[in-house]
């Protein structure tokens, strides 16, 4: 055949792929800008000094760390921050234990009530969780775990029903061949030793994923935390406390403070998340594939 035509066709292929790649790069840059704008705005506004309410421009006219200084000087904010941090830490530890217990049992044991238990949890999951708030509040109140003592109360609520979130890690356990368990049992291990010596070392990504999500969730919880702290600043987490700053009567004086607070809250969580991103991705994809 005609050589020239052939060459031209090849050139066309390369050129068109170059064009499409540059279009994609432009698109990705635009997307990235859209995604970053709110974060850039919030950081910039946290340094704004001239006005403490919301304004219609992005770049501050007067810069300074005053918002941060004021924020860290507020004992209530420090309290909220410590509260949330404690909740997150304890939650990460306990919830991980519960979730792993649940998933290992459901993945490896075939006991009589297994199917019924899984169906029950599925049905329970279809109920709006918010409904249970009223009664949990009353029960915790009777136990003395609300208002000023909201931190242990919240931990209790988060941890107690966390067993229902077993899907992702069970899905991961299911992918670890059962013959490993069997080999270990033949080698003389009890089921408990199988869990600790074989499964957990192999399930490291999903353990980290569980810890990470359990650690991150309390930072964003608003509804339960608000209900249980019940207007008592001592028991609030950052979300409940800072939400107030954006209400109609406070926004004009606390808006920039909110921005600064947001940055302080977001930075450690974000850094942790980005460091452990790999495990998060593994968990999220695995969970979606398993359903």
């Amino acid at each position, binding site marked *: 055949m005609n050589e020239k035509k052939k060459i031209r066709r090849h050139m066309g292929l390369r050129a068109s792929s170059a064009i499409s790649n540059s279009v994609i790069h432009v698109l990705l840059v635009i997307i990235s800008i859209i995604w970053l704008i709110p974060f850039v705005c919030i950081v910039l506004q946290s340094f704004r000094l001239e006005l403490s309410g919301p304004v219609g421009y992005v770049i501050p006219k007067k810069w300074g760390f005053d918002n941060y200084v004021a924020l860290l000087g507020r004992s209530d904010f420090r309290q909220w921050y410590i509260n949330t941090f404690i909740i997150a830490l304890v939650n990460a530890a306990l919830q991980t234990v519960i979730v792993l217990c649940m998933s290992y049992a459901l993945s490896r044991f075939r006991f009589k009530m297994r199917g019924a238990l899984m169906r029950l949890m599925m049905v329970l999951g279809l109920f709006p969780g918010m409904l249970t708030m009223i009664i949990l509040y009353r029960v915790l109140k009777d136990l003395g775990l609300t208002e000023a003592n909201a931190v242990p109360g919240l931990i209790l609520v988060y941890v107690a029903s966390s067993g229902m979130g077993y899907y992702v890690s069970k899905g991961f356990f299911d992918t670890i*061949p059962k*013959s*490993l368990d*069997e*080999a*270990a*049992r*033949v*080698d*003389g*291990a*009890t089921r408990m*030793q199988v869990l600790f*010596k*074989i499964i957990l*070392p*192999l399930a490291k990504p999903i353990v980290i994923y569980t810890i990470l999500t359990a650690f991150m969730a309390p930072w964003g919880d608003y509804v339960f935390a608000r209900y249980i702290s019940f207007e008592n600043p001592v028991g609030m987490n950052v979300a409940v406390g800072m939400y107030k700053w954006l209400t109609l009567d406070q926004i004009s004086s606390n808006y920039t403070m909110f921005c600064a607070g947001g940055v302080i809250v977001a930075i450690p969580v974000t850094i942790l998340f980005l460091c452990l991103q790999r495990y998060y991705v593994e968990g999220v994809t695995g969970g979606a594939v398993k359903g």
Partner: protein
Amino acid sequence: MASVKLTNVKKIYDKNVVAVHDFNLEIHDKEFVVFVGPSGCGKSTTLRMIAGLEEISDGTIEIDGEVVNDLQPKDRNIAMVFQNYALYPHMTVYENIAFSLRLQKVPEDEIYDRVTRAAEILGITDYLMRKPRALSGGQRQRVAIGRAMVRDSKVFLMDEPLSNLDAKLRNQMRAEIILLRQKLDTTFVYVTHDQTEAMTLGDRIVIMKDGYIQQVGTPTEVFEMPKNLFVAGFIGAPQMNFIETELTVENGSYYVKPFGVKLPVDGEKGTALKAKQAKTGRITLGVRPEHITLTQAGANAIPCTLEVNEMMGSELHLHVYTEDGTRLVVRVPTVSLDAETRKGLVAGAKVHITFEGKVMHFFDPESTENLLN
């Protein structure tokens, strides 16, 4: 080293699926027994019941005289090699082999001795510090065997250990298992779906189908005296040819009439039939491909047409069909034919075959049992 005794062992899965029916077998001390059968025949389930990995629905299993039904696998003192090796991916080869010893709290220096000795026997000393991921299939297989070897277990269970290997490695490992067996000198229970493995390895073979034992016997017994059609067809490759025909008796001598050709049942088979006073009538006649010979046209010759000629090297597999369309396979040693004859064996060629009475197997077409049982 121990005997294993299975008495009326049953496995019923929920929803009443019966995987193993009434399994009775006594495995003697230091015996090598192979469970063989097509997939889903219950052979692995039985092995796993011996190991304690499946619950026993009914009956008892004894190891060394002790009923082990309610014992956990770890308390049965058995070693097992799994089909997919089941090596612990996060441990090195050394740790894999040492795992069971560490669980038994054996002192570290003794562990070292035993692991290195096993590694030496299996030729994996160079890989001790590697993770299983970095090993080839054959090496992994050796590690799996090593892991089972280091323990002084009473019974050695192997669940299709060679089925993940390619053909060449499989032959090599098969030979090594025979050597290993001589070294270990313990009781072996081996599961496979491959009849060649069963024949070459086993002292005794247990042939299973649909959860029932079909026959238990030495390789020679099951080959020469298959109890029923299934065993006859399962053991031996290529498969035994089956011909629907009639058994007749004339002057006290038995005859069969495959494809209208009257063949005398002479030799020991004829004597046996006479001794049994075998009933005449419709039978399924079985003849192994290697027992059929090519011949010239004549009284005892069955005329056939050649369909496919497979050249296997040392032998030819001739796929032929008779005048009524029945397909048969004939196995001919290459050296028995001269070059001229071999050249003539092309698709469509007319050939004649025959076989002697002593190689015939007779089965009842209804019950599928061997008439000489």
